[in-house]
């Protein structure tokens, strides 16, 4: 596997001696985690802590007639059995809507179901006991009397008049609808030499985290404060929501987020069972721990991607794409998720389709419907994989129709690298992208022509290999346009505070969070570089609302671009402050001095003037020796939010090389390439591994992962044996290259990189499989591409 970079940009503040920017340095948390000394919520024990198990509905839709917990309450070790109405005394219900998603509606959702369950897995009672095992024993003794109701499961018929309405108060099962009509679509189709249509089907899947969702909630009546230990991506969001629904001030809630065993967007939401756990500690006045087990994770962790999207493309014989049109539908479960809502993915699909191409003619509609299945919401790549698969699938279909090479048709339509700034038909603003440079680089890395020759040679031997290309755009560094403008109290700004201790080490508090992607590392790299301090002397504190600045956290590929810029700016101020003090001590001018390698040096000859450690000693213990009037300020705080562009768009292109066994329908992934442009690269290894991890999740979607529901709304494969996550044995080598187009909205120039891999991987694989199947006249627009799907398409079974 290779990793290569072209045109690395150098940046003033960061282009300093001993800069860590652009270097692969080991992450500061590596030893702690590899030595098993991390602190995950799952491992936490507090005095008097009790464990909660949620008894969950076996039905997708049912009335709760009665709950008899008498026997369960008798079991030794059981502390309480709490039902929905009982818990409602301490926590209010919520409605997952945002005002900028016009017309989005949802029904009030309670922490524990009150009189009706709306999906298989919704909690109907909390059993609190001295251990999880006892609570599970007790759960078996709780008798719930249900009256099963008709379940709405098929999104295609959810809006039919004969389908029952899940929430009568809403009038119908339509949560959200959006239409867009840009340019002159009908005329463009009329002028096209070929028009191709297809329906793309995406399996519902989920993000499988190594550590399940976990909370320890501890209400301390003594100081009227609630401490929530939770593996979350957004501690301040959790603080706000918990306060709102428990009737507390935000200052009464502290959210602590230590190590998190994987997240991928699964842990950026607030779940009913987590809310119930906060409420239970208030009710029972003792620490309560909730750790989802694997089965309830499958049944309650948000699902994603369940879309059916009809697409249409018009193309000229010379390859010019004339127009795109899509009609998308998605089923999101019975409630719009709180607080980010379940309309975002569909909204993204409408925003993103065709966004990498020049055509201005684009019509789209999406409909988001309720069903009696688990809730759906944002998971790594939100909407991008769907938009990319539809767009790139259509482009390949068009290419096939006019008999043009897939790379060639893309080259003729991708927005030119010198056309920026510009906007997409859906109104997305692009500051600077590099579609063509990226494509050129990819073609070189994969040796496209040689691969085509190999493909042709092997075909003669009845070996069917395919090449798939997928270019994409990606939303990163979101401003308030994402959630804030819609009324969600989810901060889009982040803050970083840096200070020197009395020995010249740096303590850095940041509002972004770490779930394995390297937030801690990139923050230390930036602060160390800007300050001139070695990374080992920078300690980064994250995930604690009492001890970090206010901010959004880590999601939507925003940690490096937004939190990183705040770190840079804070470190710059601290550096200035240090140099001011140094100048006073040394009777020099700050402009003649620099900080390098933990010491104040002369800017011109690099001679060491005073160690930082010594400067700190003087400032903290002998301020009496400083010149009069000097008040050193060895702490600085800065916040940052993008203001000019609502999102920093990035771009990239992926390619897959696969072999299809046409007798068995099995697909072998032979190799995968990605060229990606995330602007300034802070840590190449972190970026590359983020991309690889993202690709693997995309490959999971392409070939393996699917939550399989039956017609009664039962999730039938809620375990690790039947829900197939991608594993290393099936993964190809993934080569990564970069093109660097920094954003000029920040000094750092970094855009997001965490979701790029997921955005295009499935599209590349689908296109590759279809390329392999070309001699058979089959074209599949459904994922996962299981052997059953492929054999059916080939007419073999």
């Amino acid at each position, binding site marked *: 596997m290779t990793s290569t970079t072209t045109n690395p940009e150098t940046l003033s503040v960061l282009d300093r001696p001993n800069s860590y920017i652009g270097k692969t340095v080991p992450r500061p948390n590596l030893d702690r985690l590899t030595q098993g000394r991390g602190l995950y919520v799952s491992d936490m024990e507090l005095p008097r802590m009790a464990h909660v198990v949620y008894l969950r509905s076996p039905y997708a839709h049912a009335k709760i007639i009665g709950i008899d917990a008498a026997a369960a309450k008798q079991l030794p070790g059981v502390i309480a059995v709490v039902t929905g109405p009982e818990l409602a005394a301490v926590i209010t219900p919520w409605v997952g809507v945002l005002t900028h998603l016009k017309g989005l509606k949802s029904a009030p959702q309670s922490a524990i179901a009150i009189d009706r369950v709306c999906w298989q897995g919704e909690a109907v009672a909390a059993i609190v006991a001295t251990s999880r095992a006892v609570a*599970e*024993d007790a759960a078996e003794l709780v008798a719930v009397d249900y009256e099963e109701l008709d379940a709405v499961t098929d999104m295609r018929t959810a809006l039919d008049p004969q389908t029952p309405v899940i929430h009568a108060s809403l009038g119908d099962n339509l949560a959200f609808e959006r239409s867009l009509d840009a340019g002159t679509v009908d005329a463009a189709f009329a002028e096209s030499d070929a028009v191709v249509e297809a329906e793309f089907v995406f399996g519902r899947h989920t993000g499988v985290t190594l550590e399940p969702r976990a909370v320890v909630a501890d209400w301390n009546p003594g100081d009227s404060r609630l401490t929530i230990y939770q593996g979350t991506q957004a501690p301040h969001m959790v603080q706000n929501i918990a306060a709102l629904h428990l009737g507390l001030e935000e200052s009464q809630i502290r959210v602590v987020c230590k190590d998190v065993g994987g997240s991928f967007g699964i842990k950026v939401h607030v779940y009913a069972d987590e809310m119930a756990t906060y409420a239970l500690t208030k009710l029972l006045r003792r620490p309560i721990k909730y750790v989802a087990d694997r*089965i309830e994770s499958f049944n309650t962790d948000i699902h994603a991607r369940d879309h059916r999207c009809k697409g249409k493309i018009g193309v000229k014989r010379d390859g010019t794409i004339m127009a795109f049109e899509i009609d998308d539908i998605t089923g999101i479960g019975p409630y719009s998720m709180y607080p980010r809502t379940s309309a975002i993915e569909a909204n993204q699909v409408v925003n993103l389709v065709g966004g990498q191409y020049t055509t201005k003619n684009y019509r789209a509609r999406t409909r988001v419907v309720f069903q009696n299945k688990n809730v759906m919401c944002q998971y790594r790549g939100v909407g991008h994989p769907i938009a990319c698969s539809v767009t790139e699938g259509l482009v390949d279909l068009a290419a096939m129709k006019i008999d043009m090479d897939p790379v060639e048709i893309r080259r003729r339509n991708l927005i030119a690298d010198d056309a920026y700034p510009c906007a997409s038909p859906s109104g997305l603003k692009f500051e600077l992208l590099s579609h063509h440079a990226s494509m050129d680089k990819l073609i070189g890395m994969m040796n496209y022509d040689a691969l085509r020759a190999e493909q042709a040679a092997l075909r003669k031997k009845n070996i069917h290999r395919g090449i798939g290309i997928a270019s994409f755009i990606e939303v990163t560094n979101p401003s308030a346009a994402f959630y804030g403008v819609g009324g969600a109290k989810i901060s889009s700004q982040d803050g970083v505070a840096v200070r020197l201790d009395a020995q010249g080490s740096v303590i850095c508090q940041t509002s972004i969070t770490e779930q394995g992607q390297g937030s801690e590392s990139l923050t230390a790299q930036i602060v160390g570089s800007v300050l001139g301090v070695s990374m080992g002397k920078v300690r980064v504190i994250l995930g604690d609302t009492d001890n970090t600045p206010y901010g959004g956290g880590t999601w939507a590929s925003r940690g490096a671009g937004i939190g990183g810029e705040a770190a840079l700016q804070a470190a710059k101020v601290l550096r200035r402050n240090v140099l001011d003090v140094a100048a006073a001590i040394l009777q020099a001018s700050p402009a003649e001095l620099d900080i390098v390698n933990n010491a104040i040096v002369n800017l011109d000859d690099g001679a060491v003037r005073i160690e930082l450690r010594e400067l700190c000693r003087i400032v903290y213990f002998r301020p009496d020796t400083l010149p009069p009037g000097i008040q050193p300020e060895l702490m600085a705080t800065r916040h940052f939010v993008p203001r000019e562009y609502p999102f920093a768009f990035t771009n990239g292109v992926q390619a897959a090389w696969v072999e299809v066994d046409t007798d068995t*329908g099995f697909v072998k992934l032979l190799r995968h390439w990605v060229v990606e442009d995330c602007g300034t690269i802070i840590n190449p290894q972190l970026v590359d591994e983020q991309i690889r991890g993202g690709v693997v999740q995309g490959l999971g979607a392409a070939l*393996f992962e699917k939550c399989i529901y039956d017609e009664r709304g039962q999730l039938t494969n809620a375990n690790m044996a*039947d829900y*197939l996550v991608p594993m290393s044995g*099936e993964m190809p080598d993934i080569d990564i290259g970069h093109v660097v187009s920094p954003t000029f909205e920040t000094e750092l120039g970094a855009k997001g990189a965490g979701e790029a891999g997921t955005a295009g991987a499935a599209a590349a694989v689908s296109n590759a499989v279809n390329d392999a199947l070309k001699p058979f006249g089959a074209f599949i627009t459904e994922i996962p591409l299981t*052997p*059953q799907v492929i054999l059916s398409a080939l007419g073999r079974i």
Partner: protein
Amino acid sequence: MKASAFSYARATSVVNAIELLAEHGDRAKVLSGGQSLMPAMNLRLISPELIVDIGDLTELRGIAVTGDRLRIGALTRHVDLLNSADVAKHAPLISEAITHVAHAAIRNRGTIGGSLAHADPAAELPASMVALKATIIVEGPAGERQIAAEDFFTGIYETALEVDELLVAVEVPVAQRNSAHYFSEFARRHGDYGIVGLAAQAVVDGDILTDLRLAYFSVGDRPVLAMAATKLLNVAVTPAVLLEASETLGEELDPQEDQQASVSMRRHLAKVLLARCVATLLGRPELSAGEVL
């Protein structure tokens, strides 16, 4: 996902284990490698009152060749099968099959006795035993019984074992001069149970198959010994002969449908395996391509 409470006994001898089983009947469960039992207990699919751990019974461990029989003790772990020179020499089908069983961590604990007693219709070892004409040796209060592998597996997770019996060993005839074998399965991921699999043991005389046992797995409630094999014996195998065998196979198999595969897909894959098996055994790759499917 915590098992409900249970009692635990560590058996001190085979006799002691059998006594415990006899005393507690179907409320007790033998614990061998625990790789199937523990997940089932943690999922509360079963809640035995007593666990009889046979881990200390060294007499149940080990691989030995006596005369023309290869004997494998029930406690022999998958990894031991994988690494055994005796198994590789005398029953290479097992050496190959075992690479498809789960992952290294599971193979380090899982045992052949556990796998056979568990009798998962998708498991590799039961079918291999049927292909190899193995004898399963069990011991109970009334003494030892020898059961032909073909008769041992009686249904999904069901065997001829009585609740008070312990599986102590298996014996397979050692490979003969012209013995050949074939093992393959279609699994979505490495280590998964196969959607369809085939363990085959044959005797090849020049380009003629003089014996052929085709034990399919994942196509029924137990390993299925395909009678289609008889169509291929003692004849020059032409595409037409293979096609006829393939059709017979399609008729005799009655596979189940599940999330991975429909009935017709299972039949189809079984035929693919037949063609590939015969092509491999006879060293004639052309037989596995084309119309025979």
